[in-house]
């Protein structure tokens, strides 16, 4: 669908102003998506999708209203401006309800690889099949494919506001993943591999297949262990899961509402000296990098925790106005269906200097955690978490056997302070990245 996004944005913004809005903004997305899921060397599901939509914020007398439409015909456009105005009547007056002013230039990013569009579907199907072939070759105990898949998306985003912002950018990304099961002696264990990239030729099906296979096979023979305190190592994926729990506490909105454990601690040590946490919306090569956030504010790099010390918080235009600071460009939108809320972009723990092997070799007794379950139940306000875990037992610096059915619990604030080593390896999982992270000691609940 070849919508003229900027024109639709202009039209709706003008319409809202005519209806009496003091300011208005339209956010538009148009995308095309392909996904191919393979199992047993057959295409199990192929999905081709096109969608487009518009989300509109209007302001009147310090009140804000929002409406969206996935129907870009006259019906939908008539609905969206009028409904947003209607909704504005019911929301609270707040002087900080403002839109950003236009800025000169945005960082130019290389987000669109034409190869993603040009590569024929057949080639993409072969890539998905290759992931599975590589996984099966890696170890013959890999017998079941939950799915091996290729996926890509080509998108255009436009933001128009009544202060003069009128910008459009396009991008594309592609991904490959494997979800596999290894079987032995009536036991089944799962593993996954994943890569999301900006460029088609950066996808490596062999790595994705081997990663999933290795993770599944190494869990075979997993045992329970007894309850104890020991060293715990978070693999990069698990560490990014914890980053997800910390993220809300680093949002200025949480601070302003008294819901952040970091409130009032800027300049203070909130983590180990080794720990640096960064958000970078314009990171080179980042799958979700973009020149601007969901309000048209330039994306950029924000160091949140520097060598253990809290530096500041993530802002959108609203929280920045409230605190009298500049937005950090973190007014993110999941889609056109929502208002820009504070969110992370490329959010990561900066790598340390210790190679992963050395980080592990120093451990007398500990658990290398490769999977956690129930992380969404962790409480980002209190910081308390208690999650199921599985992984590999370490003794004298070596993996001895896989472990399952244990739980780890604690508070993320304590966890950040107990980090005693950060690896030099760095892995990104779409928008979150981390190296391997070692925690000096924590309770492992088991039998």
């Amino acid at each position, binding site marked *: *669908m070849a919508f003229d996004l900027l024109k639709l944005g202009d039209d709706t913004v003008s319409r809202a102003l005519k209806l009496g809005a003091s300011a208005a903004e339209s956010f538009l997305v148009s995308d095309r998506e392909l996904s191919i899921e393979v199992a047993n060397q*057959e*295409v*199990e*599901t*192929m*999905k*081709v*999708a096109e*969608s487009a939509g518009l989300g509109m914020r209007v302001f009147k007398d310090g009140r*804000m209203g*929002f*409406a*969206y*439409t*996935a*129907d*870009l015909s006259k019906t*939908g456009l008539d609905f*969206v401006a009028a*409904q947003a105005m*209607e*909704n*504005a*009547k*019911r*929301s*609270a007056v707040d002087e900080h309800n403002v839109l950003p002013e236009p800025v000169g230039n945005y960082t130019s990013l290389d987000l669109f690889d034409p190869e993603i569009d040009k590569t024929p579907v057949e080639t993409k199907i072969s890539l998905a099949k290759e992931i599975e072939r590589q996984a099966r070759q890696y170890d013959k105990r890999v017998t*079941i494919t939950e799915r091996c898949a290729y996926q890509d998306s080509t998108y255009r985003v436009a933001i128009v506001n009544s202060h003069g912002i009128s910008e459009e950018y396009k991008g594309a990304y592609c991904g490959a993943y494997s979800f596999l*099961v290894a079987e032995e002696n009536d*036991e*089944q*264990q*799962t593993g996954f591999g994943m890569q999301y990239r900006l460029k088609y030729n950066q996808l490596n099906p062999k790595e994705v297949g081997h990663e999933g296979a290795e993770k599944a096979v190494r869990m075979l023979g997993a045992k329970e262990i007894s*309850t*104890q305190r020991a060293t715990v190592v978070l693999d990069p994926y698990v560490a990014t899961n914890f980053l997800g729990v910390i993220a809300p506490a680093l949002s200025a909105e949480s601070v302003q*509402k*008294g*819901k952040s*454990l970091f409130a009032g601690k800027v300049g203070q040590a909130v983590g180990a000296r080794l720990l640096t946490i960064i958000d970078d919306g314009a990171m080179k090569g980042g799958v979700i990098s973009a020149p601007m956030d969901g309000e048209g504010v330039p994306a950029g790099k924000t160091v949140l925790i520097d060598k253990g010390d809290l530096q500041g918080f993530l802002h959108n235009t609203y929280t920045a106005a409230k605190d009298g600071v500049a937005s950090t460009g973190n007014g993110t939108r999941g889609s056109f269906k*929502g*208002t820009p809320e504070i969110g992370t972009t490329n959010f990561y723990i900066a790598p340390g200097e210790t190679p992963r092997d050395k980080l592990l070799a120093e451990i007398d007794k500990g658990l290398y955690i490769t999977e956690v*379950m*129930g992380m*969404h*139940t962790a409480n980002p*306000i*209190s910081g308390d978490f*208690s*999650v*199921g875990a*599985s992984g590999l037992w370490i003794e004298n610096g070596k993996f001895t056997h896989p472990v*399952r*059915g*244990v*739980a780890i*619990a604690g508070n993320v604030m304590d966890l950040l302070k107990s980090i005693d080593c950060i690896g030099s390896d760095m892995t990104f999982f779409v928008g979150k990245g981390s190296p391997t992270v070692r925690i000096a000691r924590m*309770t492992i*609940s088991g*039998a």
Partner: protein
Amino acid sequence: MVSREDANRILKIALQNGGNFADIFVERKRNVSISLEAGKIERVNSGLDVGAGIRVISGDSTSFAHTNDVTLKGLEALADIVSKAAKGHNGQKDIPVIDRPANWRPDFKKKPGSVPTEAKVALVEKMDKAARSADPRIKQVAVGYGDVEQDVLIANSDGVYVEDQRVRTRMVINAVAQEGDAIQTGFDSLGGLQGFEIFDTANVEETARNAAKRAVALLSAKPAPAGRMPVVMAGEAGGTMVHEACGHGLEADLVQKKLSVYGGKVGEKVASELITVIDDATIPGKYGSLAYDDEGTPGEKSVLIEKGVLKSYMYDKLTAIKEKRESNGNGRRQSYQDRPIPRMTNTYIASGESDPEEIIRDTKSGLLVKKMGGGQVNTTNGDFVFDVAEGYLIEDGQVGALVRGATLTGNGPKVLQIVDRVGNDLGFAIGTCGKDGQGAPVSDAQPTIRIPEMVVGGILDED
């Protein structure tokens, strides 16, 4: 939205290059959400979603496409795209006419679309006030209101042609209590396949006070104990346990892909004789209820496990075709943008005979779960976890101190085998279940049950 004749013509285009089955799902959805925080109405959002998805199944292969363009021309173009990936078994004969009446129909007395926004805002403010006045230590309250009116048209090459309307209304509240350095939160929610009439009977202020009291109580709670111990789950605790411990493992797609520990076990004993598990889409008003699923199959009451013996899995159309059987109405999709997959509706462990209070009295020591939070399962090995939103120690048959931060972990089949008490109560809780990136409204319930041993993820005192 689309006449039967037009739907049939589009389905034939979808099958023009082959395929055994095709369906079309056209959706028009209006939703409203209102959020309050810090005593202010922050967001009043409305949305309009329109779109269609077309699917062709050829053997084991599914081709699926969706679009926002629901004009006849748009749908024909979409059918043509989907048909390109179809193969084999060329040429669909005429599409028959099937009319399968629903087993029940919801009666929406007050469509949220006809209720003024002020009335919705007033409810949100009422909950905020109730939570704040429950205790001075409540420092922050977030309330969310949401309603959805979804009109769907579903037609398939078997001859099904169904128009259905789903209306769901829900409220959630999160209260934050603070005292000194300690911050704790309490959550509660209510909702159903109902319109605004849900508030004729639901007591939103009580829901708000429950959340507030939970947050305040947690301020003085001790960390949960760590290790293996007996666990009693109260009937009012919700049903996350049954949802995770066996619900997901009984979904036919996971079973057929050999990703479930319950695979190949129909007729076998998979749980204690005290355990009967039911998935019932036909309970009026519950959050997971449906007259028709998203493939046009009437929603049913299915006995999944009867007195410990596995009776059936939950099927959608695709998994049913693979086993040459009928779907039992569990094919659900988040929207036209997603393909249908087997999902739960309202899932529960049937009531037993024990007196809930006696179950606690007969437990020497352990943990009482009074409110469950979210959970997760690895269906392949059956390991699951769920969060305890409100838990107490049991000491000598008495309910003792409140504990915080506990997660229970166990293995589904093992836990269900060792259940040794099932109470005569039953309490539902609502949730949004996530699977393959799709959210589905569900409710779960179980009576008070006792599990002789589960691993509690707590904290050991530093030696």
